[in-house]
């Protein structure tokens, strides 16, 4: 299994993601700097969390327009899986690789806490480590995670099984519409989610509920 983590200046959960991929997958991912001309030949490309370019224009907006995104788009078209977590999710929506937008949290405040997630679609390579309807624990840490899509888009992604995770048991921390915490693109080869499964993968984290994502994915692309 081969993976790559793309790093933009200002991302800061790259080390968490690299640690998770390494601990669960057994081999460290390739680390790609945003100015690199290309990405090695891999099965999975991950954009981790943080504050690319300080989130200064809009979360993810500047990174989404950088040249490396053309390479990611190209790879995506060739079937390489793309995962964006937190700022990575924001970058993928800004780049048009995922539907919808992520607005400022309804509370207008940054929020870091543990939430519950319901696995809305377990029939994908990303989520097959879980069962449909399973409720897992997962931490969130973000300021702009309030998912929104227009009614037409929302109906389409709901009908097409593009909702990957929903906040469950009243734990929606940011006002996301339909409690959406993570979405796929139309063919389920790209996933973006706000919560941080990479921060709940070992007993020291107080739980391993985040492992399911990596287990399913790394297994699939091995």
């Amino acid at each position, binding site marked *: 299994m081969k993976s790559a983590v793309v790093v933009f*200046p*200002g991302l*800061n*959960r790259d*080390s*968490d993601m690299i*640690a*998770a991929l390494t601990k669960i997958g057994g081999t460290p991912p390739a680390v790609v700097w945003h*100015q690199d001309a290309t990405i090695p030949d891999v099965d999975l490309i991950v954009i981790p969390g*943080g*504050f690319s*370019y*300080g*989130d*200064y224009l809009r979360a993810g907006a500047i990174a989404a327009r950088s040249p490396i995104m053309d390479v990611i788009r190209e790879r995506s078209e060739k079937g390489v899986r793309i995962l964006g977590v937190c700022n990575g999710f924001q970058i993928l929506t800004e780049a048009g690789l995922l539907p919808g937008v992520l607005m400022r949290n309804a509370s207008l*405040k*940054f*929020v*870091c*806490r543990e939430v519950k997630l319901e696995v809305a679609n377990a029939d994908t390579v990303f989520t097959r480590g879980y069962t449909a309807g399973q409720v897992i624990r997962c*931490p969130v*840490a973000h*300021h702009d995670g309030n998912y929104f899509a227009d009614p037409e888009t929302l109906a389409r992604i709901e009908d097409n099984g593009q909702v990957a995770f929903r906040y469950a048991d009243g734990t929606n921390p940011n006002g996301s519409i339909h409690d959406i915490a993570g979405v796929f693109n139309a063919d389920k080869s790209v996933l973006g989610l706000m919560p*941080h499964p*990479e*921060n709940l993968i070992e007993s*020291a*984290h107080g739980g391993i509920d985040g492992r399911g994502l990596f287990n399913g994915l790394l297994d699939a692309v091995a």
Partner: protein
Amino acid sequence: MTIPNDTAITPQLVADHGLKPDEYQKILDLIGREPTFTELGVFSAMWNEHCSYKSSKKWLRTLPTQGPRVIQGPGENAGVVDIGDGQAVVFKMESHNHPSFIEPYQGAATGVGGILRDVFTMGARPIAAMNALRFGAPEHEKTQHLVSGVVAGVGGYGNSFGVPTVGGEVEFDARYNGNILVNAFAAGLADTDKIFYSKAEGVGLPVVYLGAKTGRDGVGGATMASAEFGDDIDQKRPTVQVGDPFTEKRLLEACLELMATGAVIAIQDMGAAGLTCSAVEMGAKGDLGIELDLDRVPVREAAMTPYEMMLSESQERMLMVLHPDKEAEARAIFEKWELDFATVGRTTDDLRFRIRWHGDEVANLPIKELGDEAPEYDRPWIAPQAPVPLATNDIPQMDVADALLKLMGGHQLSSRRWVYEQYDTLIQGNSLQTPGGDAGVVRVEGHPIKALAFSSDVTPRYCEADPYEGGKQAVAECWRNLTATGADPLAATDNLNFGNPERPEIMGQLVRAIEGIGEACRVLEFPIVSGNVSLYNETNGRGIMPTPTIGGVGLIPDWTHLARIAFAGQNQPILLIGAPPAWGTHLGQSIYLRDLFERKDGPAPHVDLVHEKKVGDFVRGLIRAGTATAVHDLSDGGLAAGLAEMAIASGIGATVSQLEGYDPIPVFFGEDQGRYLVTVALDAQSEAFHDLLNEAAVHGIFAPWIGTTGGTDLVLGNARPVAVADLRSAYEGWFPNYMAGQ
């Protein structure tokens, strides 16, 4: 406003720079002529209280700063302590009080940025942050706005930078109405053989400017921070700097990358008084002169004068002395991170600090006298009077259950969740205990079982009643909080926040608090390795409560034996280890008296340091042996509050005996020091349990079995049972309700 460099220096101009007439005379004697305008600015920056410690130095010298694990004590950007395996923890705490009152978001944000920079300047990657925040009374008109802004600022910077905030304090008192306290702590991890210092070495070497560009923000900030506030405070807003965590994050990565190349000889971050302070410190410490050419300084505003450039406090900047043959390599790293890199000067052998601009020499000063030989005062002080003890029969009565519910739902003891959920507590993936416990705990990256514990503590009302005992208590409580997780307390940083030292009674508080801190640090073998002094915390002549915040670091050799405060199960005996025969006795300066009876009288509780150490070592032993299942130290609110916190954290209740023949109020709400609540998974009838009690007795420690966990109510003696759910809703309710204006 641009003032030419040859401006006449009037007494008013001198006074506006915060320099006293005798200090100005010292300048004249030193340089034998009238200073230029730039030189006056340089002197005011270097000789103000903030940079020179001129009022406190005499007393700071009395603190214990050495120990077998101490690699670097005070005097550098941060303290460095050996944690074994070739690694060191690098940490410091620093105040950003005045700026945060004027502009809470940016003031707090740049406070966090400054302390992070202090840590990574030494070659350490920041791994944990804490913030000790003190605000005015909740009902004061500015408090809510300040809480909201400061918390957002702390989070805004730390979250974006990418350091977990694992602990801190939030307290309210009317004495901070006009002068809040924002004390920011940061710790980093470094290899012991790759620590970087500010002392320059070698003549004729390039002095390099790195990071963000210089603007006019914060000009005169350090001088402002050394002045009292008056009603014209809002006019000071332009002296507050603006933080850019995105640049700081890039600066961190670029600096660590550069340090790994071996190019760095000396490094100093530009904090208070920016370019002036950093250049002078590097030169003075290395017994070298420094020559700067200001035409090469990257600026973001046109027509900046030398005075402005030298005093700018623009953030996210560094000054380094580099190996000349590595300059190109260094430049490439900074260009990769899209940061400015400019050679702005060189080291010289003449011990002068020379500044050139547009071909002229605008300053030429003796560097040693500016820096490490700045003036020092032995200010007059008077010893504070200790308050009269409370009469033995002076025990204001209230129903124990009512009192507990009221206190747990009050501003002092209620949950700080509203605050810490705005901080990223999990980033880096090493957080083992986030805020809400006795200390924050993070794993040591790269080590299978080692962890570090962090706690920040001080009880200002004790310090006000008795600065000596209060100083001792701040250290002891920090030591105790670290111990309660199972950590060996290693060393501490002190952030001394006081009023105007020119008033002998304030100076007396400072002197006695430092004496108390020193005594506690000596007995507990807990040296002070870094720190910061913030004086003139007054508004219109009324000082804050003396607040010497102690930030401590402890080492946990094996985090699988980390103790937490939550009750771990049903039917576990609860021991009150280190208690006096009556379990609790001391109501003077207690939260019970203050928050339920509006009484601030009586002496501060006494800390018996020898007993403290003995009890702490015993409790740590129980944790390491795996005997203790939950541990919590007692502090504000005494035994009742400690039990309630353990119950709330777990959802498990407890039943605690009535101590016959004693008034329950001091038993449950007294704030006697050196006590821990410890639960064990032993049958109270078992031999092992009795052996444990015997062992405590052999050590001369009273450890009464006071009750047992279980059920869903907390029952304190004969008081009515209180549902843990009710305690939790009181505890969790206060902060969000307050911030929502309810």
